[in-house]
């Protein structure tokens, strides 16, 4: 560190980046604690924070409960067992609601009501997360920047924007300073996916959005591009090619094996090549944990394993527009 200090008199900033938590309570709590644990000054959450599944916990006539989790029907006879289940559902990132048989049947017949319930539960959880972040980071000096991803609904993300927060910053579509020198721009929208998720747009539109955001950056040498969509063909975006005509999408198999491809964004790649920011933070493709250099830019996708309660992330040390070290973590 002495050698390093001679070269750069300024203080190194340590940033912890994680993404794609998909509603997992346990991994979010770890994320909030990561600042103290890793001695990081800055926390960045890269999007896709909303859960995908809602488990009805059905109260039966005999007072017992049942729920279908990962394809298996589980039955609970006591409140302790029920608490055990809800703790596990939190880890898995599943929303849940206790209801009786009649309510379940009524809900099942009404997709709009199911959708409304999803939104309600997601907003509630996100609001709780904002409270938690404010409570735990208060007085620590750690800033926590959060953006949405393509899987997050606009109205759910509105829960992040709250007046008077001290530590948590909803940074989507904003240019923010992560320390005294370095800025970050954040875009959560992605190019189209086979799942037709809530926040997608064309390459051209995404390119325009990036240009508008980039115009706000004072110094690209000290800039971070926090774009949920990874750059195309960068090894941060490798995944199986899917058949978009099927619901749910199916793998395309040729010669008896899946076809792999880069599913990232061309616009994101072109922007990185054009502006040469210091750092690119990306997610979206859970299975493609990787670090790549595009020109001078260090691009990172830490991947995601939220379902196992594991917080994948990446610690990045930088100073004066230079990434001096990084490491993947699996907390």
């Amino acid at each position, binding site marked *: 560190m002495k050698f390093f200090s001679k070269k750069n008199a300024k203080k190194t900033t340590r940033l912890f980046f994680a993404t794609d938590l998909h509603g997992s309570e346990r991994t979010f709590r770890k994320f909030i604690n990561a600042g103290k644990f890793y001695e990081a000054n800055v926390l960045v959450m890269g999007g896709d924070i909303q859960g995908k599944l809602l488990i009805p916990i059905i109260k039966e006539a005999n007072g017992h409960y049942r729920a279908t989790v990962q394809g298996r029907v589980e039955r609970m006879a006591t409140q302790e067992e029920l608490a055990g289940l809800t703790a596990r559902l939190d880890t898995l990132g599943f929303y849940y609601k206790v209801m009786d048989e009649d309510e379940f049947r009524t809900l099942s017949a009404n997709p709009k009501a199911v959708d409304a319930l999803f939104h309600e539960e997601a907003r509630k959880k996100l609001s709780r997360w904002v409270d938690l972040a404010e409570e735990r980071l208060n007085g620590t000096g750690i800033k926590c920047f959060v953006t949405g991803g393509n899987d997050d609904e606009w109205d759910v993300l509105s829960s992040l924007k709250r007046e008077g927060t001290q530590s948590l910053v909803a940074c989507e579509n904003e240019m923010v300073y992560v320390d005294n020198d370095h800025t970050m721009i954040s875009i959560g929208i992605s190019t189209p996916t086979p799942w037709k998720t809530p926040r997608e747009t064309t390459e051209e539109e995404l390119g325009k959005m990036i240009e508008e955001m980039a115009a706000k950056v004072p110094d690209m040498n000290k800039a971070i591009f926090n774009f949920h969509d990874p750059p195309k063909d960068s090894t941060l975006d490798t995944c199986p090619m899917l058949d978009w005509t099927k619901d749910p999408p199916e793998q395309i198999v040729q*010669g008896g094996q899946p076809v792999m491809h880069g599913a990232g964004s061309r616009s994101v790649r072109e922007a990185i090549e054009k502006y040469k920011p210091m750092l690119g933070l990306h997610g979206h493709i859970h299975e493609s944990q990787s670090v790549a250099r595009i020109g001078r830019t260090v691009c990172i996708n830490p991947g*995601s394993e939220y379902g196992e309660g594991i917080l994948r992330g990446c610690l990045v040390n930088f100073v004066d527009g230079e990434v001096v070290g990084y490491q*993947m973590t699996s907390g």
Partner: protein
Amino acid sequence: MATATAKPEVFTRKASGLVRVMSPFSAFVYNILTMGLIFPWTYLWAPGALPGGKLVWGILLAMVIEIPIALVYVWLSTALPRSGGDYVFQSRVFGGGVAFTVVMSGYVIWILQWVALSGWLLSYLGFAPLFLGLGATLGNTALSNLGVWFTGATGIIITSILNAFVAALILISGFKNYVRFQNVMIVGTLLAFFTMLVVLFTGNPASSAAHLDAFAKAIAGVDNFVQTARDASVAAGIDLNPPFSLIATLLVAPIAWTSLQWATYSAQQNGEIKNARSFNSQMFIIVGSLIFTGILLALLAAALEKAVGTEFLYIAGAGYWAGVSEATIAGFWLWPNIIAVALTASPLVVVLIGIGYILNSHQIVHNCYIGMTRVMVAMSLDRLLPEWVSRVDEKRHTPANAHWAYFIASIPVIFLYNLYPGWVGLTLGVTFACGYVFVVTCLAGALLPYRAKDVYEASPGAKYKLGGVPLVTILGIIGFILGAIMLLMFMFDPRLGLTSPLAYGIVFGVLAVSAVWYFIAKNMQKSRGINVEYAFKEIPPE
């Protein structure tokens, strides 16, 4: 986004997600191929070194011993369905120092010897019998001479380097090319294995002796081979009718473990296996492949005994273990496939067996690369190996640097294995070294509910308990004890080849090098402001 659908008692919304590419069946087949239906040592080493041992029972015993170990991997794989297998399991429970030292030494370094063994198998058990058999059945001396060339050090070294180079090229060109080739290798291997089984099961000692005599005459110009080999073995003090020995039978198990310990190898690719979190899938993949392969290997032993008789197995073993040159054909040891080739007069059968052995031998080096490059990439991302190791080729999506590094590192081992006196005696060192990786992982499984409580409780195996104790803890302790017994046999019984000063030096030297590597890497990264321990530590959620 308003789309939401109701499935049976679950509500889902449209969202993107992780896609896994390998089917459970592919993983099942992958394990079978990794276990190596063609690994031959049990069939010659055991009769040679362990008179009175029962081959069939020893193989089945190895299978039974491996079952609790395999079950621990089922639990761990469903709890942590990530690529990296043992390295991930151990680092989660014991931290980076133990995981790196054990996996780097037992896997990454020792498996370099499997690259050499793969080349040896390809040359000695693939090309050599093919050309020797064709030479004998077609009466072509040039083919026979070519077959003999493949049994010499020069032939084996050249074949081994080319074998490793071709596999690296195939894998670097894209994993899809390997998967296509794997289908060919599966068919070829199974066809060869079952052909060999049929040939051996339909044979009997009397007719086999005549066939072996004719084969030896055609290959080496030797008259009355079987009787000559028998006389020489007896003269060398070999007991051709030893009484049953329980100890010898037990000691067959560590040798058979050379194959069967690999039932868990798919765990290295858990991140790519569909339904990897499913208990049923992992049971099928790991335990299913173990039992399937164990039974096939025991069947091969039974077929071999039926074809040539127990007495001849001791003669063949004497050629291998006691160095009785008359019990070899042109210096060539009598492995099951060479015996099967000798028993048939059909060039087609010779070609089927030869090609199957060639394909399975070549497949082994692919497995070495696939598993180890994943581990190396994981270690590099944890900053314990250089950054360039984890760089992935943008077009082909393969960790090309890791492949080339592993290929280059294997070349000196290939030379050592084939030229350095006494190194062949370390053949089972790989079994021992990988064995200690599996044993430490068993301990990790036993401690998982206590050292990684959150991970364990979120896993599907958490509900299985016996007397209030997590079942994985009980299985982990059993697996640890059984595996440790095997390791102790290797360390203290000279008949398993690892009790020489050379063996001890290399085993502990490799461990020490790995530990020192971790220490140096950790301190180098510390000077850059990186604490490598962060890569393994779990953040408390509360």
